[in-house]
Structures are given as C-alpha cells and as structure tokens.
C-alpha cells in the first residue's frame, strides 16, 4: 500500500492533528492551563485553515478511488474551515463559563471529530466511506447537543436527535442495500452510476433513491425529514446550534450533490429531479410557514435554516457547473449570514440569557452595534442587496433557469414568492429591534472581544463577499475543473 496517498488528505490530517494536540493538552495540562483549551484550538485551527487554503491540493484519487481530493471538495473544505473557525471564535466566551470548566476540552475534541467525519463525507466516492463519514459526523454531534446536561432542553434535544438520526441512518442503509443490489456488486459512485445508466428504471431503484434522499435529507433537514431540526436547534447550546446550522448542512448538501449527480446522474430527468422538485417546494414553503410564528430566536433560526436548505438544494436540481458553483457560494454566504445572526443571539444569550424575539425590542437603544450586525445578517439571509445574500440567491436562481425548462422556471417562481414570506419574518426581527417603541429589555453591555471579533468577521463577509466577485470566479474555476468528472453520467 502506498502511504503517500495520505498526503492527499491534508485537510483531514490537519484536523486530526489538531484534534490529537488538543486531546493531549486537555489530558495532561494542569487545571489552570486548561483554560487555554479554547484559545489553543482556535489559534491552531486558524493556522490550519490558512495552511490548507495556501497549500492547495493536487487533484488525485486515493485508496482505489474511495477518497478523492479534487478542487471542488477542496474549495468546500476551505469554506467550511472558515465557518468552523468563526464558530470556534464565537464559542470561546461560552466555554469560559464556570460550569464548562471540566468539559471545555471535550467540546472542541468532539467538534473536530465531527468536522473530520464531514470531510470524509465530502471526499468520499464510495458509499461505505460516505456512511462512515456521515456517522462520524453525526454521532459526536449527539454528544455535543447533549452538552448542557444541566439543562433539560439539551437532553431532550439530544434524545430526539440521536433517535431520529439512528432511524434515518437505518433508512439510509436500507436504501444503500438496494443500491448495492442494483449496482454491479461495487459501491463506488462511478460503478453505481454505470450500473444505473445501463440498467432500466425499476421500483427498487426508486425506493433506493427515495431512501437515500431521505437519509441525506435528514442531515440537510429537508421537509418532511426536518422535524428534529427545530427542537434540536432550540435545545442545543447555541454554539452547537450554529455549527449544526451551517457546517453540517453545508457538507451534507455537497455530499448530496455528488451522490445524486455523480452516482445517480443517469436517472436525473426521469426520477430524482422530480423527487427533489417536490421536496424543494415543500422545504422552502413549510420552513417559511413555520418560521413566521416562532418567538424563540434559535427555533426561528432553525426554521429559517430549513427553508434556506431548500434554496441550497436548488443548486442540486440545477445539476450543472453553475449550480455547483452557486451552491458553494451560497453555502459560503450562508455561513457568514447565519453565524452573524447566531453570534448576536449567543452574545445576548451569554450575557442575559434572553432568547425571545420580544426581548430584542428596542435593542438599537441599548446595543446599537449588535442591532446593526443582526440587521445586516437578516437582510443578507433575506437576500437584500447590496449584502451577500442577494448575490447568492440570484446566482443560484440563475443556475436553475439555465436549462430553460418551464418547470424549473415555475420552481424558481415559487422560490421567489417564498422569499417574500421569508423577508416578512426576517423583517419581524428588524422590526423588533428598530421599530418597536418599547424600552430595551436587554440592558446595554459590552460584548466580549472574541464575540466582537467573530461578529466583525461575519459583518465583513456579509458586506463584501457579494461585491468582491473574484471569490465566485474562483469557485466557478474550481467546479469547472471537476465538471467532467461530476457530470459524466448526467442523463
């Protein structure tokens, strides 16, 4: 066996390395020194991110093609790295709190472990590796969700998460078993694709597709596989929620794209285009409809992220290079916008424990900067120019309409009409902060440096990512490089 292949796994290895370092430090360092866990991890990770972004990757397949390192997945890993870095920065304040004393290290270890899993999931080109990655990603998450074990919500959320997660992975396995039955005895994506392309449409294939879609849709929280989302987001510690909402969503979306376009590409027009069509409409609409009513900010963000997932899926249904690019871009923008919102939620939560939208009334009087950041985040999520959200939305719509099929135009129209609903509830937050005449509920306070740092990163991202077009150009370069490989089997 050629060990040099591991050199292709730089991102994974870096994450793993940091994981081990933190683990060792956390185990052997003194009580007092352990305070530095968070800072250590963050700094290391920051460095790691920079390293990854600058080492770049030379596209190659490893382990007989189970694991590929190609430019798209590399790009995504960079994006996710940035996201995780922000999450880490934002979590520092929370992990410094007293009741986290004992478990500080574990938080970071688990976080890194899930990230490792997601990387595998992204780079996998074989279903076995994919499943391993998926589980590696989702099991530590359960522990993370349960992290506030003193809070009841945390436990309930964890229970709900693990149960449904196991259920969904069971369904996924079932689906995969059918896939295996159809494939020529090999679970490499390309072999599956070949088999699907040669074999004719069969009920078994449809069931397989449906189950696999459900299995991954669970992580993406597509309707109707999303029901865990709201409760878990609400119950989990805010850092974990923000992590769930952006990072695992992003990685799952990418895996979804690869599996369906590459492995099942042959049946795109017959089968899964229409499955996804329905699912997307459901996701966007239901997510919005639920979000309208929410009062608890985290729950609200949960449903907003459900509908956002629908928009991300538009990139998949487009099933073209622009779609891939726009999806990556969307994920990037979504990371900044969402983490911006969560940063504010977390800052306020840490300081005052207030989590309801009504508590945000008159926020601009007491904490204008937080209100400002939140407003930008909301506008970006709603897709208002000149903020990044606008560009990600319109670009992803552009990718969907590329094929000029009337059905997809209708899909875009529905999505667009849904943006109005979403605009409504995002504006509700803005209204609470700026328009509501009440005196501020949240007292004026100075948020911690780490929080402010995180927030500034997000604000900068929200403002500039859209306007600074080279980012998109770079992504599209990346996805064009792999287009041949990705869309080889597209029917």
């Amino acid at each position: 066996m050629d060990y040099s292949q591991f050199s292709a796994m730089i991102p994974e290895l870096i994450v793993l390395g940091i994981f081990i370092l933190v683990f060792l430090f956390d185990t052997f360092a003194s009580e007092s020194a352990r305070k530095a866990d968070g800072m250590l991890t963050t700094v290391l990770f920051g460095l790691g991110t920079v390293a990854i972004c600058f080492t770049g990757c030379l596209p190659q397949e490893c382990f007989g093609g189970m694991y590929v390192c190609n430019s798209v997945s590399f790009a995504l890993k960079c994006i996710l790295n940035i996201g995780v870095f922000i999450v880490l920065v934002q979590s520092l304040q929370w992990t410094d709190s007293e009741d986290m004393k004992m478990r500080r290290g574990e938080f970071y270890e688990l976080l890194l472990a899930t990230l490792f899993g997601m990387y595998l999931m992204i780079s996998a080109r074989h279903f076995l590796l994919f499943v391993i990655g998926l589980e590696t990603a989702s099991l530590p998450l359960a522990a993370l969700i349960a992290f506030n074990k003193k809070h009841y919500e945390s436990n309930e959320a964890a229970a709900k998460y693990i149960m449904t997660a196991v259920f969904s992975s069971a369904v996924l396995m079932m689906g995969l078993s059918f896939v295996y039955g159809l494939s020529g005895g090999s679970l490499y994506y390309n072999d599956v694709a070949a088999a699907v392309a040669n074999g004719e449409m069969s009920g078994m294939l449809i069931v397989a597709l449906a189950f696999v879609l459900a299995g991954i849709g669970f992580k993406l929280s597509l309707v109707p596989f999303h029901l865990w989302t709201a409760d878990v987001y609400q119950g989990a510690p805010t850092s974990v929620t923000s992590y769930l909402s952006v990072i695992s969503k992003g990685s799952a979306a990418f895996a979804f794209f690869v599996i369906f376009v590459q492995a099942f590409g042959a049946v795109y027009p017959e089968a899964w285009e229409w499955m996804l069509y329905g699912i997307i409409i459901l996701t966007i609409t239901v997510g919005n409809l639920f979000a309208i009513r929410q009062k608890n900010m985290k729950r609200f963000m949960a449903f907003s992220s459900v509908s956002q997932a629908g928009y991300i899926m538009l990139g998949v249904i487009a099933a073209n290079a622009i779609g891939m690019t726009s999806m990556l871009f969307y994920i990037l923008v979504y990371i900044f916008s969402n983490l911006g919102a969560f940063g504010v939620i977390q800052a306020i939560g840490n300081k005052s424990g207030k989590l309801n939208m009504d508590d945000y009334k008159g926020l601009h009087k007491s904490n204008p900067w937080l209100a400002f950041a939140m407003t930008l985040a909301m506008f970006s999520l709603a897709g208002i120019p000149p903020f990044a959200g606008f560009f990600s939305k319109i670009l992803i719509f552009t990718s969907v309409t590329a094929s000029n099929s009337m059905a997809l135009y209708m899909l875009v129209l529905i999505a667009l009409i849904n943006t109005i609903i979403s605009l409504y509830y995002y504006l509700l937050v803005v209204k609470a902060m700026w328009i509501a005449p009440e005196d501020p509920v949240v007292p004026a306070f100075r948020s911690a440096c780490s929080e402010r740092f995180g927030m500034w990163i997000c604000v900068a991202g929200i403002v500039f990512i859209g306007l600074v077009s080279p980012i998109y150009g770079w992504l599209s370069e990346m996805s064009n490089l792999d287009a041949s490989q990705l869309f080889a089997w597209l029917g």
Partner: protein
Amino acid sequence: MDITLPILILAIPISMFLILGIGGVKMSRKMAGVLGILGMGTTMALAYTVAFTYFFSGDSAFIVDGIRQQLQVFDVTWLAFTEKLVVSIGFLLDPISAMMLVVITTISFMVHLYSWGYMEHEPGFQRYYAFLSLFSFSMLGLVVATNIFQMYIFWELVGVSSYLLIGFFYKLPSAVSASKKAFIVTRFADLGFLIGILVLSFYTNTFNFAALTSDPASALASTGGATFMGASVLTWALVLIYVGGMGKSAMMPLHIWLPDAMEGPTPVSALIHAATMVVAGVYLVARMFPLYLVEESALTFITCVGAITAFYAAVVACCQIDIKRILAFSTISQIAFMMVALGVARPELHDAMGYMSSMFHLFTHAMFKALLFLGAGALIHAVHSNNYTEMGGLRKYMPITHWTFLIGCLAIAGIWPFAGFFSKDEMLAAMFANNWIWGAWMTMVAGLTAFYMFRMYFMVFWWEENPHYKEHKPHDAPWQMSLPLIVLATVSCVAGFIPFGELVTWNGAPYHIHIDPVVATTSLVVAVCAIGLAAWLYMKKNSKPAAMKNAMPTLWKAANRRFYWDEIYMFITHKIIFNIICKSIAWFDRHIIDATMDGFAKVTQRTSVAIKGMQSGSIQAYVLWYFFGAVLLALVTWICLL
C-alpha cells in the same frame, strides 16, 4: 411689422403679475394700484397703436387691394409634438384680433381704474391687481393666438384667472364654491375642446389657424371621409371645439357657472364675465369660421343652441331680483345672440353679414355691458346690497350712475342712436336673411331684453325710495369709479357710428353696412313697446307686478329658480358621481383590492397556524412523518413512472 409692440403687449401684463404677485406683500396698496393701472394703461396705449396701425395705416402688409390681410407678427416654437404638430406661441394680427385687443385693453384699463376706488378697503388689494394683470395677459394671449393649441393654453389660463378672481373673497364659502363651480364646468367644456383639437389636428396634421382656415377644403379632404356615428369626423371635431366655446360663453346647458360667478368682485364681473372672457367662445367660432362653413351642420347646431339659450336666459332674467344676476343672464342671452348671428352667417347671404354683425355686437356689447356692470357696482357700493328690493328711487341720489346706467340700458335695448341698435339690427337682418324663423325668434328675445333691462332700471332708479336712505344717504362713487362710467357711456353712445363693416369682415373684404328699414323698424318698435310695458309696470310703485307674479306662481318660481338647472347638476354631480361612483370605487379599493392583498398575508398566517401540529414534539410522530415521507416519495415517483 415690428415685433416689439406685440411682445410688450403680452410682456407687460405678465411681468406686472409677477411683480405684484411676488413683491405685492411688501408693497403698499397705493404703490400696487398705481403700478397695475400704469401697466395696463401702457398696454392699452400699445394695443391701440397696433390696432390703429393695422386698420388705418394702409400698409401693404395689412391690406392688399382692399382685402385686410391676416399676418403672424411672430410665431416661436414652444413645444414640438411631432414634426408637423408644433405648438408655437405667436401673435396673429387680423381684423378680429385687432378689434379684441382694443376691447380687452380698454375694458381692462377701465376696470383697473374703477377697482382702485371699488376695492380700496378690501384686504389683498395687491393680490387683486396681480390677478387682474394675469387675466389681461391670458386674454390677450388668447385673442392673438396663431394656432389652436396656443388658444387652448391661454383658454386654460383665463379659466384659472377667472377662478382666482371669482374666489377673491376666499373666506366666503359661497365665493369659494362659486369659483370651484366655474372652473370645473368650464374645465369640463374644455375637455370637449381638447378632444376636438386632438381629432382635428390628427386629421389635418396642423394646429395653425392660417393653415386650417386658408384652405378648409383640404382639411375636409384630409379626414378621408372618416365618419363616426354618422357624422363626419370634421363635424365632430368642430362641434367638440364649439363645446369648449359653450363652456366659456355659458351656452346652455353649460351656463350654470356664470350667474354664480357674480360672487366675485363687481369690476371682475364687468371685465371677465361680461366683456371679455365670456365672448371667447364667440371669438373661437369666428376664428375658425371658414372651417365651420364647410360643415354647415355644425353651424346649425351652434344656431340652435344659441337661439334656445338666448330665449331661456332672457326669460330667467325677467324674474331675478339680484341686479348682478339679471345682468349675468342678459350677458348669456346677448352672447347667445352673437352665436346665432355667427351660426346663420353664410358668404352667399350679404357675404356673411352675420359674422360681421356678431363681431360688431361683441364690440358694442362689451362696452355697454361693462358700463352696466360698473354701474351696478356703483349701486352696490352705495347700497351694500345686490337686490333691487333694497334700492329704488336712486336717480336723485346718484345722478351720474343714473344717466350712465340709462344709456347702457338704452344701448342694450337697441334704441337708436345707441351702439346696440346698430349691431343688433345687423344681426337680426342677417338672421332674417338666413331664415325668417330665426329672425322672428330673436326679435322676440330682443323685446324681452328691452323689457327686463328696463324692469331693472325702473326698479332701481324709480319705483319708491327705500326707507333706509334716511340713515345713510347713497351718493355717487368717487372719481376713479365715475370716470370709467362716463367714458364707457360715451363710447356706448358713439360706437354705433363706427363703420365696422369696413374694418371687420369674415374675409377681410370691406362690407358697406346699410340699415335694412323693415328689420330696423320692427326691432325698434318691439323694443319701444317692451320699454313702455316695463314703464307701465314698474315706474311707480303699484301692485301690478305682484298680481302678475301671483297669476302664474309656478312659472315665476321656476324662472326665478332658473328652471332648476342647478338642482339637476347638483343631483348628478353629488348624488350620482360623488356619492355613488366615487364612494363605491373608494370602497372597492379598500375592501376588495386591498383586502385581497392583505388576504394573501392572512391566508399565509392561517396555514402556518393550521400546520403547526406537524411539529408535535414527539419523536415517534417525527419518524412517522419521516418514514411515510420517504415511502410516499417512492410511491408517487413509482406511480408516475411505471
């Protein structure tokens, strides 16, 4: 001709308006008054110069072998709709415009002078003079218009100035509503005018009067025989344009604004609602007369409307007690007279004597009607009431007013040798020439005119003295007011001897007026009889009028209420248009359209509440949704595919 004078004629009034309007608040009354009067005086002088040069200089530019020419002194593009349809602001000089210049400036100057005394104590004196200047400007611009669109522009402007002046006492609700009524009614008529212009200009592809009137046949040809509802589009255009004229000249059924317009200051009524603006309709028809000639049906329409209006107004005038109202209705009836005269005019009938005579009457009427109004103003100034019931026996107290007023009455009654006799006689002659019915009918109206005018005259100056005179004694007005009366009275006496036919005819060729003895005597006799009757009834206080009134109460009441036209209009505008149409539309907008828009939002909210059960919180429900979701997905796809 040198263009400075024409430009100045337009420029001075408008600059006066701007100066007085913007700087007025800072000025003293005296200052403002003097400025206004001086401005108008200069304008008058200039206008006279221009008119006399035009008529009597004999310059080849104005008259070529006996035919008076029409010339555009200047004509600058103002707005080019298309290459052909160009609105220009210009100065058209021809017999009628020259004549109108004289009329307008004279009356306007008189009124300026008169107002100095009349309005002395009113607040907003400066504003008043500003508005007067604005009106003079607009009216002058109207008469010298080189193209129909310029005319329309100034047509609107005179409408607004009249609105402003009628509503001058803007604290009185009556004045406000009167001004509003005047503007809206005329605006409605202008709508007809506008559409007429649109139709005409679309087919003839020009606005220019010269182009239109020089060769009416081609205008007719250019319509390509297009017709609408039976009538040719040209007829439609002309009739619609005439509707605009009906509005300004208060022809039935658009006459209702004029009586109310008497809410304005009396000098204003004299200027706008007797002498100048109200004859704009006549002027418009005269201006486009050659075009009307090719569509005689339009002319017939004009004649009929005129005849009816003339009679109606005369009858109503017999039953009013407010002297200004009486004068207003007499104005309506007199203008109708001119309209009829125009309507019956044909080149083959004494080469369109009707045209000449109506212009003649326009001239003379302007003079003596202004005189009458100013006289009425003097009376009101003295008695502080509009109703002759408050007056009576005033001849002793205000001799100047009395004599001038008498002259005015005689003039309008058409008694030799006063101005009215000549013009009216010519008109009647023209009507008889066209068709004896018109002649007879209008002679009767002439009789009525004499009757109601002298009814008023006797009621005011004879009858019996009003007891109030004991406490404060009515007296003649100050010189600023008396002077115009005297001047105008003189004019009314001599104007008849102007050889009008030599100056103003439809085609510029001179026409030698010769009194038609038969017509003259009949009309004279009728007038004298009417006056006699009036004298018999109203000279001395007696019960005959009351008895007559009681003999036919309903008729009297109906006539006194102007045959309920206002009520009908009120019903249509308020009950139907405002209450039914507007209100229902507003309701529809709020409760249907807007409600639907809000409805979308409501529906969304409702659904979101309705489906919240999906998120029941129980893990088992979640996985059930999950599982059935997946299975359903598979099934649906399967069914769709296999």
